Each structure stands twice: as C-alpha cells, then as structure tokens.
C-alpha cells in the first residue's frame, strides 16, 4: 500500500515535534526513518498509526485521506518500542488478539492455523503457552512482531523495535527481521536511531532531525552524497574538511585524487561554488598513494577487518583513514594519501541547529 505524508506537523503543547514532514512510502518497500532521539520519530509512527492526529497536513493511504479514520480501522500493524505485549494473555492469545476483534476477525477454525503459521515463522512454537513475563527480551520482540503481522496489515510500523536489546542480540535480530520483511513484501515504516540498522534495512532512507526531513533517498546515495554535515556525520564516520571561504582558494582541495590526479572536476567546481562549505571524505575512501599528499601518522590500530589510522595533513587538519588490515604504518611515520572519492557539502546546506564539527569525532568514533 502506498502511503503519503504531506506537510504533516505535530506539536506537544507548544513543543514542536514535527514540522511539515512530507514523505512517501512505496508499496511493498521498507522505508527507514532515522534520526537522533528527540527528532520526532516516535511521533511520526503514532501519527501514521492514527494514535495521534496531525496538527496540519495530510496522511494518505492508497489515495485515501486518513484524517477521519481511527487506528482500529487503519489496517496497520505496530511494533512498539516497549513491545506493549498484553501481560495477562499467553503468547498464543497475544498473537491471536488482532484476529479475534474488529474488522480483521477470523472464523474460529482459521484462527489456530494462522497463529501456528506465525509462531513457526518467528520461532515461537515452543513458547505459545507462556506469558510475556516469562520471555526474554528477544522472544518478546518476536511475539510483538508476530502479533502485529497476524492480521496481515497493509502497513507495518516498527518504532525502535530493537533498542531495548543488547548489542549482539540486536545484530542477530536485525538480520532476521530484514530477511523476514523482504520475504513478506509488506509496506514497512521502520524508525530507529541506529544508522547501521537503518542502512541495512532501508530501501528508502529518511533522515529526520529536529522534526524536519533533512534528506531522503536510497541509503548509499545518502551515505555518499549527504545533503549536509549532519547527515554526513550521522551515517557513519566522516572526515569533514572545511573549504576555504573564498571561491578562488576553495578550489584547492586538501587531498588529491588517486595517482595525484585532481579530484573529479565536478567536485572541484562544486567546491568553488561551495566556498565555506565542507569536503566529505569517508575514512574508507582515504587510500595510500605515492603521489598523494604527505600526512603524519598520529595513531594506528588494527581492528581486524581494517586498520584505523589517524593522520595529520600538512595544513594541520586531522583525517581518519581505514586502510587494509596490516598496512597501517606505525605512529610517527609519514604516509602519502589520496581520496578515492569525495563529496562537497555547500555551506548553505548547514541546518539551523547543526552539531558543531568538533562533536563529530565523538559522534562517529563509535560507529
């Protein structure tokens, strides 16, 4: 089911939560909305589910305005952050709940097979008789997903479904959920603050910041060509090198391209136009190159998959590089480096309340 949000706004009292958010969920696609806490993600889910009413704007399901349609008639399934499992009901009755009430009620003889089918799909068969209180976090998460999917909703909403789990379980479930959602082909709106989760699941990625859509598009596009420094820093580790404020100087990029070549001309041109903006170079795009710019190695750590190297360019700017494992030179050495790929972010693209550059190292270092 295609879902359109048109200029949707919402405020809690005087506290603005969402401002003129427009986005389209493609039929059968997985749209992931990612943003830091307080960016309005959960509000967005509640609005689409009908649990909150927008202050302005329209929410349209398959061409039909949902303004007057209450949640119980919207044909959505919701996985809540807290799971919100019914504590007085068994897993079986939790999963069956949506099939025993309202428009999606099933005849009694079809009920048990459908519940068994979902239990098998999510590995809940041995747990059907238990109460939610007797389940682990991961099991509860699966029950919540099974319960939401049971009535075959046209739209599945997931509000930070993995945030309550520990890191290893989160990684495991992330993979399982990604596979399951792709197989089911349901239209999905998935909300998270975890950029890795977002990149992994999304067909279409939406970055939300301070109640506004900062950028939307395919994940790789957003990763490589972020609209502003916030998106660049939010989606993975980013070297953001400030460009000179005057157009003439800003054309002189801090790093050459591979083999001593200039960076793509488009970038140089864009850089000139973007005087005072940023040059984004992802750490994995920094490569050792004999004809590159000399840089002093400050720190080198092997993380197994790659070497994480901190370098200082002649101008004094620090740059992070991910070099092939075992190739990072020792601290104190000099390495010539080039940028395999870069992207220019115009100064005008700075959002109103941007995180200062100095904070990005913290933001990205644990990514």
């Amino acid at each position, binding site marked *: 089911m295609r879902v359109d949000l048109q200029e949707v706004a919402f405020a809690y009292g005087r506290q603005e939560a969402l401002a003129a958010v427009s986005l389209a969920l493609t039929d059968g696609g997985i749209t992931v909305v990612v943003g830091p806490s307080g960016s309005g993600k959960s509000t967005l889910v509640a609005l689409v589910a009908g649990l909150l009413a927008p202050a302005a704007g329209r929410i349209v399901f398959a061409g039909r305005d949902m303004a007057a349609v209450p949640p119980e008639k919207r044909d959505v399934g919701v996985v809540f952050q807290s799971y919100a499992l*019914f504590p007085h009901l068994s897993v079986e009755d939790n999963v069956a709940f949506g099939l025993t009430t309202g428009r999606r009620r099933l005849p009694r003889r079809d009920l048990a097979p459908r519940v068994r089918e979902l239990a098998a799909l999510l590995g809940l068969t041995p747990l059907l008789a238990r109460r939610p209180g007797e389940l682990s976090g991961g099991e509860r998460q699966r029950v919540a997903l099974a319960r939401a999917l049971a009535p075959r909703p046209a739209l599945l909403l997931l509000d930070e479904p993995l945030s309550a789990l520990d890191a290893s379980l989160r990684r495991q479930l992330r993979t399982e959920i990604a596979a399951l959602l792709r197989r089911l082909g349901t239209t999905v709106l998935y909300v998270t603050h975890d950029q890795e989760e977002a990149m992994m699941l999304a067909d279409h990625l939406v970055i939300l910041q301070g109640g506004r859509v900062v950028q939307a598009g395919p994940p790789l596009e957003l990763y490589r060509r972020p609209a502003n420094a916030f998106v660049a820093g939010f989606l993975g580790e980013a070297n953001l090198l400030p460009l000179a404020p005057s157009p003439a100087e800003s054309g002189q990029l801090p790093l050459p391209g591979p083999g001593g070549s200039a960076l793509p001309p488009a970038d140089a041109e864009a850089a000139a136009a973007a005087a005072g903006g940023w040059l984004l170079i992802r750490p994995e795009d920094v490569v050792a190159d004999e004809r590159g710019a000399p840089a002093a190695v400050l720190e080198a750590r092997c993380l197994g998959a790659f070497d994480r190297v901190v370098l200082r360019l002649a101008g004094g700017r620090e740059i992070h590089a991910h070099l092939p494992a075992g190739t990072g030179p020792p601290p104190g050495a000099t390495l010539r480096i080039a940028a395999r790929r870069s992207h220019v972010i115009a100064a005008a693209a700075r959002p109103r309340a941007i995180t200062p550059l100095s904070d990005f190292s913290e933001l990205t270092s644990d990514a």
Partner: protein
Amino acid sequence: MSLPFRSPRLARRLGIAWTALVAAMLAAPIAITVAGAFSRSEWYGLRSEGAPVQGTAALFAYVLGLWGHHLLRSAQIVAVVAPLALLLGAPAAYAFRRLPFPGSRWLEAAAVAPLAIPGIVLAVALIETAGGAPRFALLAAGHLVYTVPLVVRTVGNALESHDPRLEDAARTLGAGWFGIVRRLVVPLLAPALVVSALLVFAVSWGEFNVSFLLATPRVQTFPAALYLTYTTNSFPVAAAATLVFLLPVIPVVAAIQALGGEELQRGAQP
C-alpha cells in the same frame, strides 16, 4: 538489607520476641472479647424482668434478636456502597492516570482528600446540604465519600504498573472502545478491583463516625447501634455482639492480605 548485629542469632530471637509482643498487644483485646463471648458465667440482658439467661447459644440468639436488623442494615449499605464506589472510583482513576487534562492532578488530590476529613465534619456537612434526603441514601453517601478515594488510589496505582501503550496496541490490532475495556482494562485491573471491593467492604462495614451521627432509630448501621447499647449491656453481651460484627471482616482482611498486601498499603495512603 540488615542492620549489622554482632550476633545474628540473638538478633533473630530479639526480632521474634519483639514482633510477638506487638502482635500480642494488638490481638489481646480481641482475644479477651472472644473469650468473653464464650464465657459461661451467668449474665443479664436488657429485659426488664432481669431474668438470667444461661449458655452461649442463648447469648448469641439474644444478640441477633436485639441487633439483627441493624446487621442487615449494615449489609444493605455495603451492598449498595461497594458496587457504587467501584463504578465511581475506577473510571475516575483511569481518567486521572490515562487521560490527564490540565488540573487533573489537583482533581485527583481532591478526590482522595476526604480520607483526611473527620467523620463528624462530613456528617454535619451532609445533613446541612441534603438533610431532607432519605436517611439510607445519606448514610450511603457518607460511606461513599470515604470509600471512593480508596478505589481511586488502589486502581490508580495498579494502572501505574501497566504500560499505557497496551491500549494503543489493542487499538492498532482492531479493538474498539468496548473491546479494550472488556479484554484489556478490566482483566488487567481485576486484582486491584477485587482488593478495592474488599477494602470498601471493610471500611463501610466498620464505619462509625459518619454512621453514628447520621443514624436514626430506624436506620442504624450495626456499629452505631452497637455503641448506643454498649453502655447498658453486660460484658458478655457486648463481647458476643462484637464477635458477630467481627466475623465477616476476618475473611475479608485475610483475602486482602493474600491478594494484594502491597496494593493495599499503597492504596490506603491518602
């Protein structure tokens, strides 16, 4: 957690001794009353002829004959007050906790405040405002003022322990207003509702202050009637009457303890 006693064994013995002493102090009057009711000594009733009556059975028969209709009156009051208190208090508690509005916190505090109002004040206020109302209704109203706050508190605290998103989840699963109340809210609150009902019973059954002031010779609850005749009866009669009065409370208190001692403690705090 435990205080750092040098000898844990001695500490435990001291603890047992102390609690036994406290329990004994609390239970002694009741024990003496019970013993009094079954004492075989000769006693005299109110009868003008002053003829002695002998035997426990005769004693209880006499007590029931004298106060039976007041006992029935108390039961009638409880039968009216308990369901009404739940019907008034539980939805109010739900509204206060789940559908807060500006000022709802103050309103909730106001709803619980009557617990702290002396019964005599309340009784006078009720007579002032609705003195012409049937006395039974006035009595029930007086009991409601003291019991509704208990329901509001107990049910409100129970609500606090449940995720407010449960109702949202039920809605997105297709349940309407009635379905959510029937399949979610009532089952989740069932323990709190039962504890509330038992609390209401215990309070209404034993309520004296308001009942005494509102009592008329024809409409009297048992505690008021008991008081009015206490002074003119012999000890065994008073003891037997007290025992008859106490009997229904014992299973209720036991049930409250078994079902929700904690809920009771939190709920009973005004």
